[in-house]
């Protein structure tokens, strides 16, 4: 564990001293801010059934698709390219420790950015109009549920990024692979769901609702803690990291 913490510390330090991290953080903040303002305007003009906070959480796919590939693309690809990978494994550390350290550093940064995004609600301070304050602070539990869902799904999304990075020494390729996989998970599933509704083909059967990320998010926002969803994401996250570990091992040999 001592070596894992040393590795984790190193990975976090690497993220903090890299200018790329601050560019990613800026992109994230801008997209979050844009989404919030857009939704706020929409809510002030038209009454909505879903609380603003829940709608805000529903848009999590956009910043996630942008930030996860950019944060994770450097983890292994850069090490492969610079050759520092050999240095890392010349000391008594296991492949699992290295993969986990890189994963938790990236995941930590991802979650830190999300927690920071909450500060956007603080912008709606006492000086704001009462309707705006009401919209922003009306449903804190929805926000809690939404963040919990982002934290659980984030495990898998970041693991996918780590896996893509372990495949290649080209950071752009790694970024594109992660982006494509995440986009397929968010949009592809929605696309097939719509197609099946239009053509009356039941492609998913009873699993349709369970697999839809947005309906899962709604459940969490409404206070329903579905353990099946948690088990699904945790198991796929562990599987992805296991595959990444094997890939790293094969790459080195």
């Amino acid at each position, binding site marked *: 564990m*001592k*070596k894992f913490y*040393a*590795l984790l*510390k*190193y990975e976090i*330090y*690497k993220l903090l*001293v*890299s200018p790329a991290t601050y560019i990613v953080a800026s992109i994230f903040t801008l997209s979050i801010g844009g989404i919030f303002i857009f939704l706020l305007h929409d809510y002030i003009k038209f009454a909505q059934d879903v609380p603003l906070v829940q709608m805000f959480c529903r848009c999590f796919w956009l910043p996630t698709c942008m930030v996860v590939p950019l944060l994770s693309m450097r983890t292994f690809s850069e090490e492969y390219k*610079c*050759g*520092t990978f*050999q*240095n890392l*494994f*010349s*000391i*008594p*550390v*296991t492949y699992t420790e290295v993969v986990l350290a890189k994963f938790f550093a990236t995941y930590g940064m991802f979650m830190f950015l999300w927690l920071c995004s909450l500060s956007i609600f603080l912008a709606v301070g006492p000086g704001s109009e009462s309707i705006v304050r009401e919209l922003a602070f009306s449903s804190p539990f929805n926000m809690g549920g939404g963040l919990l869902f982002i934290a659980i799904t984030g495990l898998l999304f970041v693991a996918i990024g780590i896996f893509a990075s372990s495949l290649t020494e080209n950071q752009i390729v790694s970024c594109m692979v992660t982006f494509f996989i995440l986009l397929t998970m968010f949009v592809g599933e929605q696309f097939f769901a719509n197609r099946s509704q239009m053509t009356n083909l039941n492609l998913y059967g009873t699993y349709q609702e369970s697999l839809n990320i947005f309906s899962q998010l709604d459940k969490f926002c409404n206070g329903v803690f579905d353990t099946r969803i948690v088990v699904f994401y945790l198991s796929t996250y562990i599987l992805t990291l296991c595959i990444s570990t094997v890939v790293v091992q094969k790459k*080195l*040999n």
Partner: protein
Amino acid sequence: MTKGDAIVVSELTKKYCGQVALNALSFSIERGSVVGLIGPNGAGKSSILKILAGIITGTSGDVIINGYSVAENVMRAKQHVSFMPESNPLPDHLRVGEYLRFRAGLKGIPAKKIRQSAEKVMRQCDLYYEARYRMIKTLSKGYRQRVGIADAMLGNSEIVILDEPTIGLDPHQIIGVRKIIDASKGTRTILLSSHILSELETVCDNFIIINRGRIVATGSLDELSNNVQGKNIFCARIGGDEQTVEENFKSAGVQILEFKRSLYNEEYVIKFEAAEEAYRLLLLKISSNRELLVRKIGHVECSLEEIFLNSTSRCRDQDNADDL
């Protein structure tokens, strides 16, 4: 394996996609010795070093590091080894001191001693005053190499493996590296590979020459020299009359292989083959003859370069013959 062996390699084979890189290598390295690994490009030097460092695994065979099998207990084996890879890749975004402290932490040095250990190796490698706070990306090639060597020397690893440690260094820096290696002689087992054979000749006690994944020669410089030149080949530099010199040699019963006149010193350089008795008789004869001035006599000294070229070309000829 004897108690004095730090590294024992037995029947080690490594294949990359079916291509044999190392072919059933077996050798052992004595504790506290400095051993040079030599071979042409693509001979498999880096593969051996990476397997010994536990970075990659062999296809078959085993490596024992201080009694621990790399195949069975790689973590234990790695604890005894420090490795500096070829071209010495380093993370550019860290400062020298930070990097060494990070590596010290990973090598299991207790937290209280990390700073002290890092400073000790920085002083050893002349990094403390000039490069301690510098970013690695701003360092010259020489300084980068020193950081790599400092990293390898960090901690209490009994075995240090250096892959091309002096590549790209100027003569002053090479002498610096040599001093570091000399200072570790006896306390650490050092295995290094290099293409600068004269450099290896100076620092190493023993040599392992490999070619096409096989060991072609192993031993000390004298042993290798004897293998290449033959044990009974001698060389003499003698001043005097040509006829007298030749007569003395012939009467002692030695076989002259080469007889040439050196123009500058007015002496004769004679390469000859002689049995032990004949050599003693020759020594008696020429030392008692007042007309002859013996400037030098002894075994033929063979440079590592000659040994290397001879061993690798012999191996290539053998391979070509096998192919035919």
